[in-house]
């Protein structure tokens, strides 16, 4: 049950109890007032009647006043209505205690009334009846009014409850929304609550938390940014001496020592270029060009250059719209990886329908490397012997810049599949020259 419903229900019940209780008290007080008044009236009437009865007419004849009922030793006379409703115990109490006036309400009867009676010694008992019907009608009207009041108060209470609860719940919901926005990474989100109640306190606490969180994340970001730019600066600064080293080593004779220095200088230069490329890819600063070219021409040219042993399985022709340079980079790295770590036979398969390029070898596969392939720097750090070990990280990063993805798996050897995005498909056929000369 939501907070809103619970609060509304609670306020409605309290309203009902309070209004009902007050109504009940008012009603009971009203009833007893009216009964007492009726008793007083009845007592007055019975005294009047008794004094008339006591007078007696000359000749000893007894007068029975209108509306009264007189019981003597010789029998009973008078108002039949009084006689019919007279409560038995009133009759007894009057008979046993001469000289006193008794009253007795009988409100449950069909025609409610208050009876009064007294005993005149040596004459008999006199009874009267004071009708309570009019009172009963008024009380009934009062009862209806009070029930309506109680019901109204309950409904009002419920509405009030919904209103209050909605306001509370809305404020709490804003806190929830803030927490969600923070979780989604919007560190600028704040509540700026008004008021001084607990919910406002909660809001202030959330704002403080967001502030602290934002500051921490900004610090981490700054640190990461500093480290990135530091690494980039270092790599950049390394370029000049490395260029000098490569150029100078090229002057060495091809003695065993000379070859060693040349190779190491070249490897170092290559490693630095790859590191810089990984950094650029990691910074997300790379954007792909979109131009049309013949994918098969590219694949067969690159395969001929890097892995001529590979068996090509390709369709007739396939023009795509992508970034040829980046695609070439991905393919070169996949082919180099297969050549270095895999075993023949090699296969390069182009699927024109799925827009995929798959490089498959028959070596030991990626193995353990696959488990950590999702982590970009795991990819970078894992060297499968030879090369810089950055090749697959670069291939993966460039695939993503192309809008595609690189899928690595083991299936009787290492299988690397570059899936191009559907946007690379060229729908309209354009007239182009036949393949290049080289």
């Amino acid at each position, binding site marked *: 049950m939501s907070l809103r419903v619970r609060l509304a229900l609670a306020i409605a019940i309290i309203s009902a109890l309070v209004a009902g209780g007050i109504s009940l008290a008012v009603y009971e007080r009203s009833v007893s007032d009216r009964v007492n008044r009726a008793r007083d009236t009845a007592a007055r009437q019975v005294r009047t009647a008794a004094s008339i009865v006591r007078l007696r007419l000359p000749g000893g004849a007894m007068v029975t006043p209108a509306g009264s009922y007189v019981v003597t030793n010789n029998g009973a006379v008078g108002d039949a209505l009084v006689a019919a409703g007279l409560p038995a115990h009133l009759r007894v109490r009057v008979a046993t205690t001469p000289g006193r006036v008794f009253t007795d309400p009988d409100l449950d009867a069909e025609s409610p009334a208050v009876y009064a009676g007294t005993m005149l010694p040596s004459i008999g008992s006199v009874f009267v009846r004071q009708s309570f019907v009019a009172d009963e009608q008024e009380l009934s009207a009062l009862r209806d009014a009070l029930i309506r009041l109680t019901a109204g108060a309950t409904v009002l209470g419920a509405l009030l409850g919904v209103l209050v609860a909605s306001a509370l719940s809305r404020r709490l919901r804003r806190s929830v929304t803030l927490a969600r926005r923070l979780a989604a990474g919007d560190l600028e989100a704040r509540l700026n609550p008004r008021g001084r109640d607990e919910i406002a306190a909660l809001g202030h606490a959330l704002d403080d938390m967001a502030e602290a969180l934002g500051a921490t994340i900004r610090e981490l970001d700054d640190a990461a940014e500093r480290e990135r730019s530091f690494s*980039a600066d270092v790599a*950049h600064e390394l*370029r*000049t*001496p*490395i*260029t*000098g*080293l*490569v*150029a*100078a080593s*090229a*002057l060495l004779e091809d003695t065993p020592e000379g070859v060693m220095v040349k190779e190491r200088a*070249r490897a170092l*230069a290559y490693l*630095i*270029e790859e590191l*810089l490329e990984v950094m*650029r890819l990691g910074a997300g600063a790379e954007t792909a*060009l*979109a*131009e*049309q*070219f*013949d994918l098969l*021409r*590219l694949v067969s*040219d*690159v395969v001929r*250059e890097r892995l001529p042993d590979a068996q090509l399985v390709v369709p007739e022709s396939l023009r795509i*719209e992508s970034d*040829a*340079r980046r*695609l*070439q*980079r991905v393919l*070169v790295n996949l082919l180099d990886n297969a050549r270095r770590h895999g075993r023949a036979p090699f296969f390069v398969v182009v699927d024109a329908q799925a827009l995929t390029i798959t490089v498959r070898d028959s070596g030991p596969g990626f193995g353990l490397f696959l488990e950590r392939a999702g982590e970009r720097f795991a990819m970078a750090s894992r060297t499968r012997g030879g090369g810089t070990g950055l090749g697959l990280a670069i291939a993966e990063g460039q695939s993503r810049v192309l809008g595609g993805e690189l899928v690595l798996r083991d299936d009787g050897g290492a299988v690397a599949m570059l899936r191009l995005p559907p946007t690379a498909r*060229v729908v309209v056929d*354009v*007239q*182009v*020259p036949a393949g*290049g*000369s*080289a």
Partner: protein
Amino acid sequence: MAMMESHLPRLVFVEDDPVIRRATSDYLTRNGFEVIAAEDGEAGLLAWRESDPVLALLDVMLPGMDGVALCRAIRAESQIPVILLSARSDPIDVVLGLEAGADDYVTKPFEPAVLAARLRAALRRVAPSADGRVAVEQVGLLEVDREGYVVTRAGEPLALTPTEYRLLVEFVDNVGIALDRATLLERVWGYGWAGDTRLVDVHVQRLRAKIEEDPAAPELVQTVRGVGYKLVRPSEDL
């Protein structure tokens, strides 16, 4: 090239780092070039004026007058091939350099052997290609004389760099056919798929500036969206 003391191609090489300058100069000297080395832009400009080289090799990042400014200064007076040495992570430098008139660029760190190959490729574009095709081709007001290595527009000779000339010849040989950037990169510059297609775009712009009536609304070298460029023969009634 009036006063040639040697038959080797002479180039001006401007580079501020002494090790790169010396080692690269030595390598190129051993591999069939005559190298005039200079350490900054001003010295480079002076060396270029005095030595009348067939090619300029300029580092982009130079103290004082930088490689791009030097390239612009040379291009204002001469059509010799200009190759820039640049850091790959400065793509703005590359575009600025190409727009200043450079024919190609080589990124640092470079293999001296690769650099030498790129220089030779740039020099080959200078040599007239006599491959048995029609010597003189007419496209609109444009006349391309392959044997005389002369391009005229309405009889007026145009000053094209060797790269621009090679690019134009490629278009003339394929009138009406869309050539994609990879093809042009391969045929004009000798690059494979790893070449920078911006070379093509910047050179097409420069070529248009020289051969088109209105370079902003080109009639001869037209863009084929998503593919590349093609040379269109203007219809007679235009």
